[in-house]
């Protein structure tokens, strides 16, 4: 919200991707892509299938290490790190094909989101008393807040493997939110949903952005959703950045129209 009221034309950059190239063997998934994500905005990443969107998310998330280019997060150049480190730096994400812990209850799934915030030593944990117990209770309160926020109180104890698809997506979002991320990455949060579920999810994404001030980067195929939600849009095609701007600018861009209509590439 604050970002909108600021008169300054230079908003704070939370994450910047500079000249990133990622290849798997001979296949270049991302070619010299640069863009940035401003603090507090909803940044959409769109493009046809195979454009390199998910690869981009995996780079931001630290799952993939680009062969070339740099990534700046909170003004610091990121070194090559282990994938789990991104989470403790404040990056959370959801996955295209829901990656929940299927055998665990909704509550336990969301509690795993607090992993990076909990640090009482293993000795107390093994005994399950003392500081570890107090810590558990404290984090449980935060998790309950998230559960209330996403309106999933009724499925708290259900093993997530038994939940319908739409609710699983919501639990995955809850797990990501429980980490109180600064940057939330959503990989097709509305894929496979019906209209009503999409509207619910859109509302949650907006609420997260407005109430918690969380910066969001999302991949989405539904153009109506992208136009409604996002502040700015990056368009990728065959691993290259072909457009970057507000939803209106992007949808008027000839290259974008060509990419979506499938004009032959030279």
């Amino acid at each position, binding site marked *: 919200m604050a970002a909108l009221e600021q008169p300054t034309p230079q908003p704070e950059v939370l994450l910047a991707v500079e000249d990133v190239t990622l290849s798997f063997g001979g296949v270049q998934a991302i070619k010299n892509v640069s863009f940035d994500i401003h603090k507090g905005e909803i940044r959409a990443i769109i493009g046809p299938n195979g454009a390199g969107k998910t690869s981009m998310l995996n780079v931001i998330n630290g799952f993939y290490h680009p062969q070339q280019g740099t990534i700046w997060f909170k003004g610091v150049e990121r070194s090559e790190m282990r994938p789990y480190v991104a989470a403790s730096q404040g990056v*959370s994400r959801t996955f295209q094909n829901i*990656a929940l*812990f299927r055998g665990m209850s909704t509550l336990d799934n969301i509690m*795993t989101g607090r*992993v*990076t915030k909990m640090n009482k030593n293993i000795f107390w*944990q093994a005994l*399950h008393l003392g500081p570890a117990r107090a810590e558990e209770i404290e984090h449980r309160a935060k998790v309950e807040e998230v559960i209330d926020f996403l309106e999933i109180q009724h499925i708290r104890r259900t093993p997530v493997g038994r939940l319908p698809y739409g609710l699983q997506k919501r639990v995955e979002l809850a797990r*990501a939110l429980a*980490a109180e991320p600064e940057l939330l990455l959503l990989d097709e949060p509305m894929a496979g949903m019906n209209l009503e579920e999409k509207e619910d999810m859109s509302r949650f994404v907006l609420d997260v952005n407005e109430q918690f001030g969380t910066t969001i980067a999302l991949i989405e195929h539904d153009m109506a959703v992208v136009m409604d939600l996002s502040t700015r849009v990056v368009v990728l095609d065959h691993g290259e950045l072909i457009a970057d701007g507000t939803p209106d600018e992007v949808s008027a861009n000839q290259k974008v129209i060509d990419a979506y209509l499938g004009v032959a590439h030279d």
Partner: protein
Amino acid sequence: MYDAVYPFLIEPFAKMWTDMPLFFAETVISGVMAGVMYSLVALGFVLIYKASGIFNFAQGVLALFAALTLTGIMDNFGAPGWLAIILTVAIMFGLAWLIQKLVFNHLINQEPIILFMATLGLAYFLEGAGDIMWGSDVKVVNLGIPQGASQWLLDGPGLYVEKLEIVAAVTAAILVTALTIFFQKTRIGRALRAVADDHQAAMSVGISLEKIWIVVWAVAGLVALVAGIMWGTKSGVQFSLSLIALKALPVLILGGFTSVPGAIVGGLIIGVGEKIAEVYWGPALGGAIENWFAYMLALAFLLFRPQGLFGEKIIERV
């Protein structure tokens, strides 16, 4: 037909139950106790398999190594039992760390068969290391675990039950309860279950797979130590101990590779099954069927329920 089946399948049980109920009870109890020992080994397998997808062939050797180290510390340095146990636990934890750092960290994202081969190598390495460090003669575990028949049960209902087996059963029960609480109630336990479910998602919430795998190997080492102590007390610490790992295989096939309760129930079924088979069918088949009964049972299970009693049914999208 009836004439052929009755004396073989029904009569021995009917007669034993009516004529010698105590003997039947003893058979079942000794089966349960043997089953507990199998479960202890199978448990180590399940823990590592669930968390990392590694089929740890070295689990039996791990039990041998733990027992060797324990007796080695006690015999060579004259350490009291409690101190030797603490030291051995520390060594098993250190070993877990080394195994992860030196072996499996270098094999991330490799095929399961390669990971399996690595554990095979690990098994031979540990066997050799145990031999060099503590020698290959049969050792006695001298922790003061009571031996012989329980007088109380012998005088009361007139049952012959080994004291050691009672101790083993109680210890196993305590161990399993403690592990269950650890997995269900603590953060590390939750992280462990998360890793078992989905590696990628676990990393995305900030769980370090490497740390969790070290914890898993450490817990498996602890379970191996308990198994090693019990088996070692029963039949001496000798290198054939590593072969009990083979008995854990039918237990796993019965219970399912991914289920802790499965390892326990599977162990009990195998234990009781083979004792009853030996006693009641053994004579008809020429004896010693205890040695292969478990494998036959596992084979039958593979035909009808390949995922085991409690295992997850593997459905793959084609």
